[in-house]
């Protein structure tokens, strides 16, 4: 069917930050299908110059309110690599626990409060308070738990105050209580799986290159080698060759590429590259929800997020057990600045994040670079949108349905736009 179709979404809702979708189809042919980021740039990399190492983690946390812990952790790792510091085992475990808290909070926020309204055909989660009270209560409990973990370890739910260069400021004594809450969360995640099972995931596949950290003996979150599903592998320090940032004229976010015109990062990328390291219960959830590696349906990123939640809750219980068994109380090591450079790669909720700093001998930053997950995804969102529109326009879909599907596709990536334009 030869149709004319227009989709024009200015400042897409239920995502973090400002982006526009524009689609024009004439006589069944795409004239244009674009995803553009129009957020105001903030110049964090410039602001970091001349800053003391002790403020870098606090400053870069403000790149993103939703993944502030991830930014802080990448920043600390970059600084510690530059200074040649190894943190204690206890601090490593506490940081990972805090990281898990943030991932849980962020995935649940996205899946149930930003994405779910599309599947349940409501404009926001607010009407669900009346129509699905149990589901909302369940999602709020899970989100609250994620925030509680962040508060206990990081001192606050957003913008941590206890994560410092050299380790973690204090050893929390609220861990046993958290462990009980985590056990209860496994029941909630069962209910979450049942609900998500009813979501109708669009049947859309697009061959994609997936980039993430490469897990060696555990599902990866902080530091390590980089891997792509097209077979490229690099060291953490070689991140620039993994991202190849370039400037697009219509976007304030940069774009990235590797083996193809674009690649994807995020929960689905981590899952595709590291599924063999997931907790058995998480693998079970994946198979219940029809997520099989290697999956090339971008809408399945929603499912991969839930699968990761199951992994994270189980892993957090194990981490707390190990922390409670250890007799060492040491969470900080002494910090002596030295001239040098360091890279910190961290898997934040929306994908792999890199911070790269050069320091002078007094511990002041000379040069900084941050490569954000959504920056890496933006070109891929743009191209996926093109393929999606082509497929459905050929099937003769109507404008409003196409607009919804385009919006859902962008939301599946859980873009964090102010972050991508830092």
């Amino acid at each position: 069917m030869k149709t004319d179709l227009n989709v024009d979404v200015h400042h897409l809702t239920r995502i973090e930050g400002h982006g526009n979708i524009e689609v024009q189809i004439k006589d069944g042919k795409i004239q244009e299908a674009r995803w553009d980021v129009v957020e105001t740039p903030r110049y964090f990399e410039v602001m970091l110059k001349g800053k003391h190492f002790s403020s870098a983690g606090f400053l870069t946390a403000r790149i993103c309110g939703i993944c502030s812990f991830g930014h802080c952790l990448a920043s600390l790792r970059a600084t510690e690599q530059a200074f040649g510091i190894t943190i204690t085992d206890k601090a490593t475990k506490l940081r990972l626990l805090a990281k898990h808290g943030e991932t849980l909070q962020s995935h649940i926020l996205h899946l149930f409060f930003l994405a779910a309204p599309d599947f349940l055909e409501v404009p926001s989660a607010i009407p669900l308070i009346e129509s699905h009270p149990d589901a909302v209560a369940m999602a709020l409990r899970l989100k609250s738990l994620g925030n509680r973990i962040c508060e206990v370890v990081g001192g606050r739910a957003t913008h941590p105050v206890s994560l410092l260069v050299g380790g973690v400021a204090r050893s929390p004594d609220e861990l046993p209580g958290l462990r009980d809450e985590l056990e209860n969360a496994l029941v909630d995640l069962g209910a979450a799986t049942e609900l998500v099972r009813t979501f109708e995931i669009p049947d859309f596949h697009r061959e994609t290159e997936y980039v993430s950290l490469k897990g060696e003996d555990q599902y990866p979150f902080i530091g390590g080698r980089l891997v792509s599903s097209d077979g490229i592998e690099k060291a953490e320090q070689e991140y620039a060759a993994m991202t190849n940032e370039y400037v697009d004229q219509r976007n304030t976010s940069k774009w990235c590429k590797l083996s193809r015109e674009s690649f994807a990062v995020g929960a689905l990328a981590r899952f595709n590259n590291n599924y063999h390291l997931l907790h058995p219960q998480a693998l079970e959830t994946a198979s219940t929800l029809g997520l099989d590696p290697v999956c090339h349906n971008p809408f399945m990123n929603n499912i991969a997020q839930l699968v990761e939640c199951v992994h994270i809750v189980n892993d957090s219980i194990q981490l707390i057990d190990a922390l409670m068994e250890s007799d060492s109380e040491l969470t900080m090591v002494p910090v002596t600045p030295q001239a040098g450079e360091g890279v910190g790669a961290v898997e934040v909720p929306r994908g792999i994040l890199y911070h790269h700093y050069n320091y002078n001998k007094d511990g002041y930053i000379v040069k900084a670079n941050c490569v954000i997950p959504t920056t890496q995804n933006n070109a891929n969102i743009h191209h996926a949108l093109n393929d999606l529109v082509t497929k459905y326009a050929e099937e003769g879909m109507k404008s409003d349905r196409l607009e919804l599907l385009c919006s859902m596709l962008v939301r599946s990536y859980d873009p964090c736009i102010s972050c991508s334009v830092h």
Partner: protein
Amino acid sequence: MKYLGIKPKRPKIAVFDFTGCEGCELQLVNKEETVIDFLGSVDVINFREISSTISNDFEVAFIEGAITRDDEINRLNEIREQAKVLIALGSCACFGGVNRLKNAYDFKKANQEVYGKQHKETLPARAVKEIIAVDLQIPGCPVDKPEVERIVQHLVWDVPYQFPAYPVCFECKQQYTTCVFELGQLCLGPVTQGGCRAPCPVGGSGCWGCRGPAADPHLKEFLQIADEREFSRKEINERLSFYSGFEGML
């Protein structure tokens, strides 16, 4: 929601984000124990980050973020025209926040460094009150959700809200924290407005002054003590200018 059988009015609210990290908006949907009551006490008319229902029929506008581009000024003017009450939410909106740090650099060079030859528009970061009239400022990076809840309750019941006059130290001491000055670290608690429950000194990093100056900050005396304790002026100034709440006082 009722109090003593009386139904309050539900103000029609809108939340708008400008240049910032959206962490303050996120606080509005945090504190899950009370979030349903909180969202029920107001009528959410326009909150792009969480809802696709968008209308311009609002009374109270919360503004998050600093102002750093011309199109933002236009948007802000339109919102001001519609809003009966306009509230700056968070340190970016109140003071410019960390965004203001960029004002110390050459923008041409900054643009060159980040975007190469492609020019992207940017203005010096400013607080919302430098552009339009603001009815209430809620500082914090991020804002403290319990405080936002209290303020919204005051709005709902039509009672003016008083920010605490005391500094952060007061709330820090209430929690029996070892003063970080005793550990040889700098802290802006003595000069910063309280009300956040002092998470930073309690958490081990000292206060960085995100809420701006306390009612009567005694900045001169504070600088004297910091000098005596041999903190360098560079360190003190970096700290005081971090969230730009002390802008114009240094």
